[in-house]
């Protein structure tokens, strides 16, 4: 247990060091982009304003308000003190809306779409992968090319195909939105059903892409495992097939779990393609427009959340690996 504690503390230390650097980069990188966010805001009110002195005054007013005219180090100190009070400031691009308010209204949509999609895609993909590896023959001949085909479809292509077939042509599902265009949210069945129906196409557009990639990865890992000595030995012993598949599945999925953790860590970044094609609410398009509009507070907040989630997911995986696979712990603590 002493060895494990050392392993744990070592990982924790690295987590904190990485988090510190990530925090500094989250602040610095957006501000290194060329361009001027205040000019973008002034641009929006430029129409109809015909004296340049007035325009300059308004520009300076916003520069002062957002602090973009202050030295970078002053801005950083201000940012750090605000973040530790849970205050990410006001968004530039959606001024005067607070960043925290934008996150609150978007993040639930994003997580509700992404988390189930990632998990379902991961599970179905892995099951198909291991079956393809084990059964081979006809099953593999179908699953493998289909998986290859689907996983190589660009995400927007899949989303558009689903949109055209199931929404535009067949009219089984709505074309856009998170709920009915004619509804106001409440706790009625009508609203809940509308949310479920609107959820389907964005959800499956992510899942179908994820399945292909997962199935290919799992199939390769499983084929490797199937040729391992323990599988041959198990067969000689006459152990039933489903039991052998179970063993293979467990051993082959270790790398897949790492991929899963990273996917969950980055999910807050949003399902950009699904959000755009289906006009689905979420953080993906918010982050994209924040980057395009150089909305420093919003970019920093979202990337900070992503950073923290990725770091925590990685940390959790490392800790779990240390527990379940003594070889890793031993190698790390040597």
């Amino acid at each position, binding site marked *: 247990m002493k060895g494990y504690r050392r392993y744990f503390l070592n990982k924790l230390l690295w987590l904190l060091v990485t988090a510190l650097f990530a925090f500094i980069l989250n602040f610095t990188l957006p501000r290194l*982009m*060329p*361009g001027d*966010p205040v*000019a*973008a805001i002034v*641009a*929006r*009110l*430029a129409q*109809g304003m*015909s*004296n*340049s*002195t*007035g*325009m*300059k005054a*308004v*520009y300076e*007013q*916003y520069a002062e308000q957002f602090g973009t005219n202050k030295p970078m180090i002053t801005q950083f100190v201000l940012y750090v003190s605000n973040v530790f009070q849970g205050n990410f400031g006001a968004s530039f691009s*959606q*001024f*005067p*809306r607070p960043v925290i308010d934008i996150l*609150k*209204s978007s993040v639930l949509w994003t997580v*509700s779409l992404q988390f*189930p*999609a990632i*998990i*379902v895609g991961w*599970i179905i993909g892995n099951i198909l992968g291991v079956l393809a590896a084990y059964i081979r023959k006809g099953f593999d001949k179908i699953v493998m090319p289909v998986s290859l085909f689907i996983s190589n479809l660009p995400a927007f292509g899949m989303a558009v195909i689903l949109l055209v077939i199931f*929404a*535009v042509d067949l009219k089984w599902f709505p*074309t*856009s*939105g*998170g*709920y009915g*265009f*004619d*509804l*106001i*949210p*409440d706790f*009625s069945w*009508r*609203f809940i059903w509308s949310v*479920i129906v609107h959820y389907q196409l964005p*959800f499956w557009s992510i899942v179908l892409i994820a399945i292909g990639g997962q199935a290919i990865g799992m199939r390769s890992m499983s084929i490797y495992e199937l040729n391992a000595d323990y599988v041959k030995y198990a067969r000689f012993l006459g152990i039933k097939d489903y039991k052998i598949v179970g063993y293979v599945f*467990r051993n082959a999925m270790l790398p897949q779990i790492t991929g899963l953790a990273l996917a969950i860590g980055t999910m807050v970044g949003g399902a950009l393609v699904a959000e*755009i*094609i289906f*006009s689905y609410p979420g953080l993906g398009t918010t982050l994209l*427009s924040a980057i*395009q*509009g150089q909305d420093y507070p919003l970019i920093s907040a979202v990337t900070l959340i992503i950073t923290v989630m990725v770091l925590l997911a990685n940390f959790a995986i490392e800790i779990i690996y240390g527990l*379940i696979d003594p070889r890793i712990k031993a190698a790390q603590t040597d």
Partner: protein
Amino acid sequence: MKRLMFVLTIIVVFTLALSACATATEAPAATEAPAATEAPVATEAPAASGEAAAEVVAGDTVLPREETLYFNGQQWSAVVCWNPYSSNCNNAMAIAQQDNARTIMFETPYMYNMMDGKVYPLLADGPYAWDEGMTKITFKLNAAAKWSDGSAVTADDVAYTWASHVKYNTGTGAANILYVADIVAVDPQTVEVQAVLGDDGKSINPLLVQAYLSSNYVMQKAWTEALEARAAGDAAAFMADVAEDVVYSGPYGKFFSDDTKVVYIRNDAYWGQDASMWGKLPAPKYLAHIIYKDNAAGTTALAAGEVDVSQQFNSNVQDLWLEQGLPISTYLPEAPYGIGASLPTAFFNTASLGLDNVAVRKAIAMAVDYDTIIANAMTNQSATFTQVPRSLMNPTPGEQAAYDKAAVADLQWAGNDIDGAIALLDEAGVVDTDGDGFRDIDGKKLSYVATCPNGWSDWQAAIEVVAAAGAKIGIEITTQYPEWGVYQTVVTNSPLPAEGYDIFMMWSDGAGPTQPWGRIRKLLSGEFAGTTNNWNGNWSGFDNADANALIDAIPTMTDAAEIKAAYTELVKIYLTEVPSFTLMYRPQAFHTVNESVWTNFPHEGDGTDPAVPPLNLTDGYSVAGLYNLTLVK
């Protein structure tokens, strides 16, 4: 390993449960914006029907299709504020103080009608009048005009609105302070707008003073005072206030908004139903704008009948009725489908090698194939330069009549004139001296970068055609597309960089009460040359004494012939010097309607008098269209 399987099983069960009933996690959306929290709308609603409205608001979680008019193309992100004093409020449907001001919630004294170039009273009663010395404008307010809290709109409100703009240096204040000296209440119904006077004792710019009346909202004095108290005198807080409690005079107020839509509800006690104004309420009870993420999503919704009025660029819009047989139409049944009003323009960086030579500038402009731009970039939703020859005017009949066409006919080019461009360059001695296929000046190859913001697809298509023209006349033109955040910072600050921005696109003014003078000023006036934070125009830095003098003089001219001669001279200067060149005509607003639920939208020859402009029933006089709508069945 068993432990891991157990953990995974738990995750699987949890996940499937979550995906099967996603609403469990979505449900908070309801708490974000329950109708109940929107109840303040009810209190904003008129005193006379306040309680009734509260019941309606609380009970309405479905917007009846036959009571709701749906829009797209105006609101592209969640509404964040309701404060017209803010310079940066993104509430596009409700707040747009511009030449054709948006008046569904807040109202201006007058409404501009781009169809006849006149203004019509909204909060005002009758026309405004200049005094004989051209020092001030006087107008009366409509005695019937009321705020949403039931109190009367008075001259004090108008005066206090202006005073607040000045006190807090709002965008409106900063934009007008050089032309409007003060606005005072003569009596509760009479307003006097005092102009800043020139050396001759007359208004230095009567056009901009009178434009104030149709461009800027009147806000309630009592509410403004409450806002000031909340902001404790701090200008930034005053403008950053989200103003959920704002009092308004227009026919619609806030009903609901979240990340997916914004909905406005009709104030059934709206003063405009008085016989002195519209005589009735607007037909739709709700105006709703769904927030689509891009044009494609908006077009799909329009085709599906989920949008009634579309203010966005719908590529190949005619296919919607010709190919798909949908009940969708535009203002004009044939190309260009709408009325061109603004002139997207390519500007030259005259500091670049060779672009200080008018022959090079004109040759490039002559060689561009504008018909291809209009066919590809605008899918024919623009008049061609054969139909409407280039000048400084937009294609509206009023502006086309503002200059002498015959006098400039030999200067106008329709484009794709490769031979003419080559002859012009040869004549100017700009030839290929080293045999590399490109012309040189001082031994250096003429090589330019043409640019516009990345993702502005119609502009990008146009810039590609400009680049192609260069190759045909021996000038190398490549393209690049920086992000808008970078692009706008560069082009609005003089001097322009030595590389990367040789030919670049920006906009020009559309239709409005100061046009065509306002557009010409922003395309040619030397006052913008060499400035920073220049969001007005003349990004080439053109500075011509004759043009400057004419631009200064026109606002104070009164003789129609003199004005026409001045405009003609300005067109001559523009087409001779070519500091920039128009690439296409663009409508003031795209206006496509789906008549599956509502009908009687503005169309050419619809019999309205004055004609209702195709501005989506929200901008300027087009708000009149809301009162003409009827249900299809």
